[in-house]
């Protein structure tokens, strides 16, 4: 029982980070069919901005996260306009190569600027320690992460389901040509979605700095996990990746807790099985 709640709790916190980082990838891949392997780079950038602002300039955690969101979103929109946009409709191989190029460049640049070691995260006093929920106590930081995760999901849901922007986005994902022909500017829409997705990734990177360590290998090492969330969850929806992140977060935590000698083996095997069963993702539309 004790172990079960631990697994569920830590798995949930992990799943939240995975979801916040990956949801933007699901939307951009669904919208433009762009294989963006460099999505993790934006999460890494967010992590480094957060940690640097906190450790170097004493900026409070919340403010640093906000700054990470804004800075990364701005960088990403510049990249999108200047480089990504030229490769829409290019072959899969070209997109893969281009984004691998971005990963290599960012990894080298980050190693040059910050060194090869993982960045230490000094949490504010308010978030360290434990919080007592009556039947047992939980680490405050992870509880905070879960809370922020749910708030973000609620906001995202409101944005996509209840605003004009969201309606346009859904229309463009469903049928881009039709959306264009009724006057929706899909290029602008995509830039916005790309910036939002990258900003969220940055937020996830900063927020999850304690779970997914901020170091130069970030963008390539965790890439498999981000892609897994998208591939299993299916493209172009909010719900699919969430369920996939839950499965992955809790499954991975459970495996590492219960059978540490097998490590991530089960997770990869389960993913292969899931993708064979539903190649377009478990919740994706084929």
């Amino acid at each position, binding site marked *: 029982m004790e172990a079960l709640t631990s697994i569920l709790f830590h798995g949930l916190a992990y799943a939240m980070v995975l979801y916040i980082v990956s949801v933007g990838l699901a939307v951009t*891949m669904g919208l433009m069919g762009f*294989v963006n392997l460099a999505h993790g780079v934006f999460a890494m950038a967010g992590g480094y901005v957060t940690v640097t602002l906190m450790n170097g300039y004493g900026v409070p955690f919340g403010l640093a996260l906000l700054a990470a969101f804004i800075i990364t979103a701005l960088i990403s929109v510049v990249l999108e306009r200047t*480089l990504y946009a*030229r*490769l829409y409709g*290019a072959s*899969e*191989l*070209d997109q*893969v*190569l*281009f984004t*691998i*190029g*971005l*990963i*290599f*460049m*960012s*990894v*080298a*640049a980050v*190693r*040059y600027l910050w060194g090869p070691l993982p960045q230490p995260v000094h949490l504010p006093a308010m978030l360290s320690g434990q919080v007592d929920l009556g039947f047992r106590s939980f680490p405050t930081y992870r509880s905070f992460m879960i809370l922020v995760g749910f708030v973000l999901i609620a906001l995202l849901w409101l944005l996509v389901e209840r605003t004009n922007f969201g309606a346009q986005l859904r229309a463009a994902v469903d049928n881009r040509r039709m959306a264009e022909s009724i006057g929706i500017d899909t290029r602008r829409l995509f830039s916005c979605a790309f910036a939002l997705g990258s900003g969220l990734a940055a937020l996830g990177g900063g927020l999850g700095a304690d779970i997914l360590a901020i170091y130069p290998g970030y963008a*390539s090492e965790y*890439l*498999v996990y981000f*892609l*897994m969330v*998208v*591939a299993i969850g299916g*493209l172009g929806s909010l719900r699919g990746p969430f369920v996939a992140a839950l499965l992955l977060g809790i499954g991975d935590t459970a495996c590492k807790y219960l059978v540490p*000698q*097998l*490590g*991530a*083996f089960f997770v*990869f*095997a389960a*993913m*292969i099985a899931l*993708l*064979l069963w539903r*190649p*377009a*993702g478990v919740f994706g539309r084929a």
Partner: protein
Amino acid sequence: MSPVDALIRRHRLRAIELLPWIIAVGGYFAFADYLPLGSQILIMILFALSLDLVLGYAGIVTLGHSAFFGVGAYAAGIYAARVSGEPLSGLLVGAVAAGAVGWGSGMVILRTQGLALLMLTLAVTALLAEAANKASFVTGGADGLQGVDISPIFGVFRFDLFGRTAYVYCLVVLFLAWLFARHLVHSSFGQSLIGIRENLVRMHAIGSPVRRRLLAVYTIAAALAGVAGALLAQTTQFVGLTVLGFQRSGEIVIMLVFGGVGRLYGAFVGATLYMIAQDQLAKMDPEFWYFWIGLLLVLLVMFARGGILGLLDRVVRR
């Protein structure tokens, strides 16, 4: 000229196709101090050549080709450490093991396309890397496989300290593999692969057994990659976890793309230049080497699709 004539003409060996071999043999005498690097280059050429069959000819975008290189390296390494140090049977063990993994995984993952396929190639590699990491009682885990002792080839040619035997050994294996690959891509089987790459729906429509063809080439390429891995294990007498990493899969794709995809010789040009540049630049600034590679890759995609040979083609035609 009829298409049949064109095919026959393409199959006939042209003089320029001997150039890589003249350079490779000349290199043995000209760069006697660099033979270990030379062997590495030859191994990477073989690895890139096997990838070209899958990526260039069949059009399967894979980020998991290092899986087969790694399986070949581990199989040959473990065979040498536990069973026998005889090198040629070791190569065969590497090829068979990698081919079997290629066949098994191909049977499963080649049902899918696009993102799912890309993911599955990555997942298979991640799975094998995790397995190699955890099964440290046979693979040595993170410390690498120790005790790989290779006996002389045919009981005569010992692997010497200067890498002379290793170089010649790699060169002969690569030459045979090249003959095989060249024959393969010019055969009707090779032509059907190009057809699948160019127009999948039409190949289905004319009754080509698409999945069987893809599985066949995937298995063959896996076995060749396994031979490359086995060569690495035998010539360096060590196998580490990096043979299975994402980094290696990415690098081999980059080498091939720099040279030119789907041309058979892109592997030769790309792998040679990449390895030499890495050897030279990494000495000056190992950390920043990947930055330049990344930048070059972005520029390549933006301005020079087709790689170095593609650029040459364009220059020659003009």
